[in-house]
């Protein structure tokens, strides 16, 4: 028996899992050939991109139990890095992509330093601040980033002489990155490294007593999450052709966080489900524009009440612990009959 990820159904393991995932991948590979509508392709690209963003945030929040609400900052670093590498140095997309990830990971290392002393809401405030600092840097360092005007005309990637410029082509880039992310992450979380992360989430003092270098593993955890957020940003920049600081505001960070919470932290599949649901809702609710934020809010509040671990979250984790309160009051005793 191998280490079973929390929340993984018993029938979805081993060969069944391999077959199921292969079929899904085959379907996704064929999808642009079957239904190449540009709008649908665009939505799919967004879903894949958010699947990476939510998945990488889930590594930080869901696996090692830190509380990062500034994931948009790492996303921003990746996007700007790719744009600048491509435009100022003329670096190829395929080189700029990992470099942007590495740069984001280094920023992640810096942000992780407070995790050695802070946790919970205090750490959240630090990550929020870091995310804003990155956005303000992009906004005010006009010489490098173009300030509020952003960067326009980011060149499209080339793939063996083929210029990738339309959504159905980007679809494959995002699909490739998302599959790569989940493949690699599945291996990492089911190893000694993943176990160390989960042990920090479940009980940090116990983890230390077993020799888990919590500081090192928390830093590694932040770097891993930031790396993939950077990669997602690097893929996003040439796809959208234009980036500006207001795309990476705190709202974006909360948006990613809400997908993780709705889908479910602490499992691999949870964030994907969250990304699909929220992006789907965004499209369906376009007619009501701003009111969809109200619907998200209600969805999250409802989720916290009914299923704090998220839709497909790990029911066997510390994340699923319900606090007694308004919703779960003790049953009222029948009133005494009048004398």
């Amino acid at each position, binding site marked *: 028996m191998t280490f079973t990820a929390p929340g993984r159904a018993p029938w979805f393991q081993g060969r069944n899992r391999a077959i199921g995932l292969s079929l899904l991948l085959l379907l996704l590979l064929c999808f642009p050939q079957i239904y190449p509508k540009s709008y649908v392709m665009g939505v799919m690209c967004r879903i894949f991109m958010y699947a990476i963003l939510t998945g990488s945030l889930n590594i930080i929040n869901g696996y090692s139990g830190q509380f990062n609400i500034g994931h948009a900052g790492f996303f921003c670093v990746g996007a700007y890095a790719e744009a600048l590498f491509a435009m100022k140095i003329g670096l190829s997309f395929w080189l700029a992509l990992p470099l942007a990830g590495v740069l984001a990971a280094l920023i992640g290392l810096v942000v992780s330093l407070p995790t050695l002393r802070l946790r919970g809401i205090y750490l959240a405030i630090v990550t929020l601040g870091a995310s804003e600092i990155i956005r303000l840097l992009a906004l005010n360092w006009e010489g490098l980033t173009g300030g509020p005007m952003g960067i326009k005309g980011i060149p499209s990637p080339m793939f063996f002489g083929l210029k990738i410029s339309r959504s159905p082509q980007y679809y494959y880039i995002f699909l490739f990155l998302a599959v790569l992310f989940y493949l690699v992450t599945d291996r990492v979380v089911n190893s*000694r490294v993943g176990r160390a992360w989960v042990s920090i989430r479940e009980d940090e003092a116990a983890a230390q*007593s077993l*020799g888990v270098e919590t500081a090192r593993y928390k830093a590694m955890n932040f770097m891993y999450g930031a790396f993939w957020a950077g990669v997602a940003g690097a893929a996003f920049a040439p796809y959208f052709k234009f980036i500006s600081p207001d795309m990476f505001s705190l709202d974006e960070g909360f948006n990613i966080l809400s997908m993780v919470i709705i889908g479910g932290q602490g499992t691999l599949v949870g964030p994907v489900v969250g990304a699909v649901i929220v992006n789907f809702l965004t499209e369906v609710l376009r007619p009501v524009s701003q009111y969809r934020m109200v619907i998200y809010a209600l969805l999250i509040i409802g989720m916290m009440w009914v299923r704090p671990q998220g839709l497909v979250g790990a029911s066997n984790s510390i994340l*699923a612990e319900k606090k007694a309160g308004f919703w779960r009051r003790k049953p009222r005793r029948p009133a005494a009959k009048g004398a």
Partner: protein
Amino acid sequence: MPVLLEAHAVCKYFGGLKAVEKVDMQVMEGDIHGIIGPNGAGKTTFFNICSGVYKPTSGAITFQGEDITRLTPEVIARKGMARTFQNIKLFKYMTVLENVKIGFHIRTRTGMASAIFRNACYREDEQFTERKGMEILERVGLAEVRDTLASNLPYGLQRKVEIARALALDPRILLLDEPVAGMNPIETRQLSEFILKLKGDGYTIVVIEHDMKFVMGTCDRVLVLNFGQKICEGTPDQVRQDPGVNEAYFGKGLVAGGGAA
């Protein structure tokens, strides 16, 4: 026999509270060393200093001749000291086997790259943790519950899981904080036998306990604390006859064989 773990005049003050005051201790290799004392005597605080959770206000701890006073718990764990906690600190939402597997952290090497490429190092480590984990569970008698969530086990078994997890570190010394608390007399006797077996396997054990029968029957040497101070250290018999110990537990006058009767 050489001294394995030694405390030199260890003090720990929390503001004005002197939780531990100038405590010396010498744990010989291969011994079972008991620490007893009334509630609030500073036993667990002293334990936390030994394992690096607290830094003492003054004094020093040496382990295998090396000063470990300022080291972090994870470094001390690597040097061969494993511990359990008074309020059980299991990874509640993991299975018993997974709990034990985390105990192998310092004996395995898989890093990020090995995990991603699933190279020989990863495969060896996974096989090692799986095999050795089951060995430990069988030794402790938990093999049947390996796939049970730790939080679903009865209290006595949870304590055993915690010991199994500590054993996974392959430590030189094992610090047990009230291992038989909440156990019934039969479970207590079984655990006592188990700890004696561990001693036979060459482990050195330090144990905090309230259960006097357990302490007197199991320990080679006993340290008695009261109000943060050491009042006695010696064999169980010496401790039993020590007037200071009797006074701490039963009060003055009645037990000395003098006045009352």
